[in-house]
């Protein structure tokens, strides 16, 4: 058990180190997320009450697109210099590689989300602070569920031609419960509803995350198999 945690931690630090030396993925993911919010502003020019209605959707679409970019990038990097083959040769449970990748992508996406939320807060003149605790909770579980399927599909798509197209085609239909649950819960949170009103959505997000983390953990060995 301790050894497994050690392995996951080592692999996670490896991803962080690579990212820290390039700072490519995180920058492009943040910029891309900001661009999505920016384009939405052009498309709908929201103001006042309306912006509160649009905000949850805008945020989650920005998170979704930023995530797709991050997952693609995550495995494209492993293909360079056949890094993935070396990982595959390591005498460790492939599921641990999945967990490490999930942690790393969760962190990258969280950073991107923080930037996106901050910018949105300024552009839409909207304060997230009054219900910040619950907002973070909803965003965390939504992101976890989204990353859980994104990482395994990123690994699958890395093997295909046109993987940039392949990943969203795989990811979006499966992530439908995440979008519904996260957007509904976020709307409630930002409207200052009492937590009991959206607790069932948060439960759905938690259940989705657990199911797909476990399932992907078990299936990941087949994805890496040669």
């Amino acid at each position, binding site marked *: 058990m301790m050894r497994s945690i050690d392995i996951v931690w080592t692999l996670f630090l490896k991803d962080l180190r690579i990212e820290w030396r390039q700072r490519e993925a995180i920058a492009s993911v943040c910029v891309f997320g900001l661009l999505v919010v920016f384009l939405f502003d052009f498309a709908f020019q929201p103001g006042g009450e309306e912006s509160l209605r649009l905000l949850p959707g805008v945020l989650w679409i920005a998170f979704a697109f930023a995530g797709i970019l991050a997952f693609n990038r995550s495995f494209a990097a492993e293909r360079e210099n056949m890094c993935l083959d070396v990982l595959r040769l390591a005498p460790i449970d492939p599921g641990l590689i999945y967990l490490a990748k999930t942690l790393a992508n969760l962190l990258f996406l969280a950073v991107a989300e923080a930037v996106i939320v901050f910018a949105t807060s300024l552009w839409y003149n909207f304060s997230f602070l009054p219900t910040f605790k619950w907002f973070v909770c909803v965003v965390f579980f939504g992101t976890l569920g989204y990353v859980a*399927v994104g990482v*395994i*599909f990123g690994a*699958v798509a890395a*093997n*295909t*031609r*046109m993987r940039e197209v*392949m990943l969203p*085609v*795989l990811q*979006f*239909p*499966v992530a*439908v*419960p995440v979008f*519904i*649950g996260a957007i509904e819960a976020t709307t409630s949170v930002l409207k200052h509803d009492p937590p009991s009103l959206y607790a*069932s959505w948060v439960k*759905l997000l938690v*259940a*989705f995350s657990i*199911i*797909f983390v476990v*399932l*992907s953990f078990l*299936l990941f060995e*087949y*994805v890496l*198999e*040669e």
Partner: protein
Amino acid sequence: MKKNSSMTAHAILTLVWIVVALYLALIYTPNEANQGNVYRIMYLHVPTAWVALLAYFVIFLGSVGYLWKRSESADALALASGEVGFVFCSSVLITGPLWAKPIWGVWWAWDPRLTLTFVLWLLFVAYLLVRSFFINPGRAALLSAVVGIIGFVDVPIDYMSIRWWRTQHPQPVIMGGPDSGLPPKMLLALLVSIGAFMCLYFLLLRQGIALIRLRRETARLRRELAMG
């Protein structure tokens, strides 16, 4: 040749069954009180929807079978079911709006079951696309099995999350609760139609598997020839 004759028998059975189902659906059953003739599309729509769900379940079975036993026939089963299921699912998405326009007044509404059918259709598309986009065809079976399993596990969660919106789809007419139900004549016609489409599905599935086998055999022979 024995296999061919069983396939022919299956084809004839399907044909006869569909003709009987058509007779029941178009002539034997009366008009519906409110919808008149329009409701008759149900005899096509409901069976194809059942078959589409069954087909995704068969993808799941084939995928698990392939990962577990590594049998090529399990993979062929999953692939053939994906191809046939895609056609049936598309037909559900076409016949649904044809009925909805005169009855609801709109072609499409984001009601739970419509949304779920659309998601199911996207899952079929994803499954088939993943198969056709592999750089190394040897890994297609393995990775599409992973996609098939994740997709299948996702379907009930999709359904649950989507159902928490208000529904305007007609309630299930079979096993749908005490108030639902069809007059005996319509129920008979619907059950016979479902049987007919199941029969058609299994026929197409068998054809599909046979075709995949032949394709693999051809590829193998071609490789042997090239090696000299």
